[in-house]
């Protein structure tokens, strides 16, 4: 499952980031494999808003399929 498809407000862990460019971007935001995130918004055809560590980051739609996650529970 990726960030593109996971239901909103599901607590999940980043399992893998399969694109180096996306990995680089997320590392600078303090996010990497193993970190817990929640997708709080994902407007139609738009970006996803990830929440983690008191931080909200909007990531463009084209990046989402590279972030594989594992669902844990609803936040």
């Amino acid at each position, binding site marked *: 499952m990726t960030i593109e498809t996971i239901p909103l407000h599901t607590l999940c862990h980043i399992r893998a980031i399969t694109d*180096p460019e996306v990995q*680089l971007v997320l*590392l600078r935001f*303090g996010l990497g494999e193993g970190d817990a*995130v929640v997708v709080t918004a994902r407007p139609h055809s738009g970006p996803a808003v990830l929440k983690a560590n*008191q*931080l909200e980051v*909007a990531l463009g739609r084209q990046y989402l399929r590279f972030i594989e996650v594992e669902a844990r529970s609803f936040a």
Partner: protein
Amino acid sequence: MSRDTCCQIPSPGTADGEPAVSPPFSCSPTKGIGPCQGTVLSTEGFTQPFQVALAGNPNVGKSVVFNALTGARVDVSNFPGTTVGIAKGHLVGYPTVRLEDTPGVFGLSALSEEETVAEAALTAADIVINVVSAPTLNRDLFLTQQLIDWGYRLLVVVNQLDEAQASGVTLDLSALESRLGVPVVGCVATKNQGLDRLIQRLPEACTGTSTPDLPEASALRPMELDPGHRLKTYAARRYYINQWIRQVMPPASVGGQGTHASLGAKLRQGTGQALLHPLWGALALIVVLLTLYQVIGVWVAGDIVDFLENDLLLKTLIPWMQQGIALFAPVGSWLYILLAGEFGLATMTTQYLLGVMAPLVFGFYLYLSLLEDCGYLPRLAVLADAALTRVGLNGRAIIPMVLGLGCVTMATISTRVLTSQRERTIANALLAITIPCSAQLGVIMGMVALIGGLKAWLVYMGFLVAVFAGLGSVLNAILPGKSSGLVLDLPPLRWPQPTNVLKKTWQRGSGFLWEAAPLFLLGAAIVSIAQLSGLLEWVQTALAPVTQTVLHLPKQAASAFLMGMVRRDFGLAGFYQLQSHLTATQLMTSMIVITLFVPCIASATVLWKERGWREGAGVLTLSWLIAFGVGAVATRLLEWTGF
């Protein structure tokens, strides 16, 4: 400083209540966790000239700290990317200490123009003050650690401690200081708390504890500028921070606030979520636009302008000016016509600049400053991302576009926040051609009120949106390469700070008047001289095929186009003057054409400077073609529909 007090908000002046102390660090040439390393600058350093640069992630309050330390007035907003260049000043009370405010960056690897600019300023500095935000400390420490790894002499300022407290986040700043190996100071810059302590500890700035297993700074820098190597060093740095971050800040609940978040923080979080919802976010946008129309279009453009222009200027001040000018220049003489005639330098400039433009521009900037300060714009960027992606941009471009509604010149500079040259080309073309600035919007709203209110406003906006979408789509299709995706951090919503909002409104509004006044005078002089010499009549006749045949406007409209070449709002003012001779269709056509017409001299100059003469000339040519082409279609469509 004790562990118990280190995370509390320091009181004004005395920081955490402690008396001024001498530097508690010893100089140690060895590396490792513990006290500050490197040679400590003595307090005598304040008597020697030295340079300090402020660095940090976007939207952590660098500019607030800079303003407080220098007494300057750099723009401060609640969205990332407010600072796009380097602001310079001196530490208040210490003229030998030069300060530079750099653009907010997440790292130093020349991934964007902002990073290149920031890195150059940091390299030239003797000391770097790294401002981090308490609520997002985990993220911000990546840059902090990179600055340490690159060998900068550093002092860390943990700002926004009040927001962290409100969110239920507690920090152990002494543990952070011990881990980083550089002095750490807590502050709430917007309330001027903790900044005295910052100045006291500035001489202690030093090199800190580097990430283990990474090469020395001289070898690391080129490595991190190389796309092939930086991922490995980035991952090592992040891994290192993750190992000790929990000693500094406890884990927060991932999806929400900290466990002890205040009611206000929870409300702000809920509102922030609602603004990102497709339905509630769209409704909020409609409310924002309707409020803008009511405030600027009805109250300011109607009531206030009516009072200022008609009651104060046209009935009182301008007749006095005309009488005064007639004392030394007989009515009808060339000097009288130049100063007080139809396009008089003294009378027309006073009437439009003070009676029409000033209230509209100040009103618009007040509204824009409120939106900027509360943190609404980044959320608008999320909602607009899908639409802007279709024109080759991403949601981040909404910020220059909204700023362009204030001043296109300023917005042209702010397109530096966009990642690629391709995006900047598209954004600048759209800004120069399709985005009306506040001065234009003000006059347009006044004219719209004359010809049908909200319906006319929707028609006007419909044409602009169509041109925006059409031009953007064409540029996206023909320009080589592809645009980048959105990566944007969303700051927490905050109540706008009245002092900041009012100062910013005043600064921008008065800046507009200073910039516009000479250009208005120049425009009035050109048109008056053209009128006196008979050139205006010749231009009107020469342009008649365009004005009369293509646009179905009277030939006098050529004067307004001539004025519009100096400033578009000045051209609109010309049409405003002709309003009693124009039908509703002609007024709408003229508003559309002059909006799409050439950008003002100031915007064109900045565009040429930022993008080069070739792109600047291309945009100017395109604006003429689009303005008259769309004008021709609009006038026929409006006539056909019986507008």
